């Protein structure tokens, strides 16, 4: 089924991953490898389990009552769902950007500084300033906000808010960044900026992005996984998935026959 998955440099590796929300099974035996230094796009119709899979990687599903995970999911070979894994540490390594921009109702500075503060990453104020500036710079937001760092983050435009959220995520220096439809609430221009940013971040971070837009998947990702009804249908290089899909379901979805 997913023949293209057997790669030695997998950053995140799932084998037989199953997720239940109460009685309802959301994921059925997913085997998937996510390589470092690449953008992996997860596509599929609504309710296909792509977001569920994404939220397994930083154990965000722990916040959902009645969620149960079976099978194996590893980050650098370490079991993410091992009993002794500290969720706090895991989430410092695996950052997340959400569907709707959700900056804290605090200043722009505090938004970015919050993560480094709780993880004790900065020894003094100068170091914290440095982290905040670098993160804003990397997120391509510094030029727009450097004069108003003390203003509220919620006062920015939607696209700026989302880039602030990305800056906030990279401030804790994660290895993997999960993005759950990061552009679905943005206009085309803001979307283009975020996509550009994703492309730039690819060199330093492993990025997994869930998207409803096949064009976006084609634009930003190197590898694409297609989910349908909780199953991984096909996984491969983005170009191959979009030009020469092996599975009829994938073919149907990307040509717009359903979805």
């Amino acid at each position: 089924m997913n023949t293209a998955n057997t790669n030695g440099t997998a950053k995140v590796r799932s084998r037989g991953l199953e997720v239940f929300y109460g009685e309802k099974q959301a994921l059925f035996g997913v085997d998937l490898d996510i390589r470092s230094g690449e953008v992996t796009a997860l596509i599929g119709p609504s309710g296909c389990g792509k977001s569920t899979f994404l939220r397994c990687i930083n154990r965000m599903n722990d916040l959902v009552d009645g969620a149960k995970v079976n099978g194996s999911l590893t980050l650098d070979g370490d079991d993410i769902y091992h009993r002794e894994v500290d969720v706090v540490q895991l989430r410092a390594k695996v950052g997340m950007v959400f569907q709707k921009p959700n900056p804290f109702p605090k200043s722009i500075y505090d938004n970015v500084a919050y993560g480094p503060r709780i993880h004790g990453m900065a020894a003094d104020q100068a170091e914290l300033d440095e982290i905040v500036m670098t993160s804003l710079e990397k997120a391509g937001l510094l030029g727009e906000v450097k004069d108003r760092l003390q203003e509220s983050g919620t006062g920015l435009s939607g696209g700026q808010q989302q880039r602030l959220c990305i800056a906030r995520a990279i401030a804790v220096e994660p290895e993997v960044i999960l993005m759950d439809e990061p552009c679905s609430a943005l206009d085309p221009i803001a979307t283009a900026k975020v996509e550009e940013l994703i492309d730039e971040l690819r060199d330093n971070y492993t990025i997994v992005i869930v998207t409803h837009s096949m064009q976006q998947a084609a634009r930003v990702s190197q590898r694409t996984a297609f989910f349908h009804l909780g199953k991984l249908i096909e996984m491969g290089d983005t170009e191959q998935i979009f030009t020469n899909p092996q599975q009829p379901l994938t073919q149907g979805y990307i040509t717009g026959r359903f979805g």
Partner: protein
Amino acid sequence: MTESTQLIRSSDTRTAAQIAASHLKRRHAAERRFKAIGLSAVVVAMTFLGLLLFTILGNGLSAFTQTYVKLDVTLSPELLGIGEQRTAEALATADYGGVIKDAMYKRFPAAQSRAEKREVAGLISSGADMALRKALAANPELIGTTQTFWLVADDTVDMAIKGYTSRQTGQEGNRLSDKQLGWLAELEADGGVTRRFNSILFSSGDSREPELAGLWGSVVGSVFSLLITLAVSFPLGVATAIYLEEFAPKNKWTDLIEVNINNLAAVPSVVFGLLGLAVFLNFLGMPRSAPLVGGLVLALICLPTIIIAGRAALKAVPPSIREAAAGLGASKLQVVTDHVLPLAMPGILTGTILGMAHALGETAPLLMIGMVAFIVDIPASPLDPSAVLPVQVYLWADSPERAFVERTSAAIIVLLIFLAAMNLGAILLRKKFERRW
């Protein structure tokens, strides 16, 4: 003409739009009816509120002034019964009442018989000697001189001056005798009667004499009680709300707890009073009538309100904020203390203040723990026996003297001002800290 007859004839085959149009009239009528009913309900409510305020203000505003009588008092050491002594102790125990009586006899020399003398002296309050004592303590040189004092009039005089009781001589049921009324008229003609701001009402404790009765004791008692209520119910209530909303698993036990908290909010407050009596007084042996116990009982009454308001405020914080913080690696407690709680605080504070305002007005549970006692002293600590404002209203409403009628209303006015101030505080807090996403 022909068109209209055609329309009537073809009524069976009307189009959908025509049917909708005929319904439209009824729909508009229903809407107008609903609006009219709503508006009249508001008008009725406002009328009753207006009526309430009108009667209370009408009855109570006059209590904020008090009648004073001007009198030339000769402060002779013989009458004071202190001889040559000028010590503070001697001045404190001197017979000021005798001095005042003597001055009154001199003012109205016509009163000769014992009964007449008693009536003359009865025009001045039995507590008027306080003013003299204060003046002499501050300035002992006044002894031996004659000074003009404005002295607190008796409540019967006060009522007559304010027009609540008849000043017509020879009427049935007059509280003042015909002679007293005559003397009063004489005093008034000389400019010897005036109405001043009733500072006694705001500076002294309760008294059997209406003209000497004050609210200060019960205001202090209320403040002590509410401070204890706040100190106990706010941390407990907020901690409970946070635990139930953010940490507790959702299962049938937490459901049961939630149902019971909602039920507790509806339990009659007198039941909490009985609980307080059984636990705080009988079992723990705390002092009776004390604001400490009152505050604890009121805290029990406040708790469900604060918990429910707190949970609602926590629920209103968007989950995206929790996800954002958790996604950065914040622990559950950090998510709550750094993000959720600050955002929920305005709502929690509003709920708390409303709960406290409710507690301020509670009477029944406090009767159960003995806060209904007649207490003259101003409480110095939450352990001293004390009244609270609503209980003071209850006590004064029960008193037979006519002058307590206006004082009851005055106490209600003060209570309402406190309530309005607290509600205003809640509104301002909400306005100041409310944040939108």
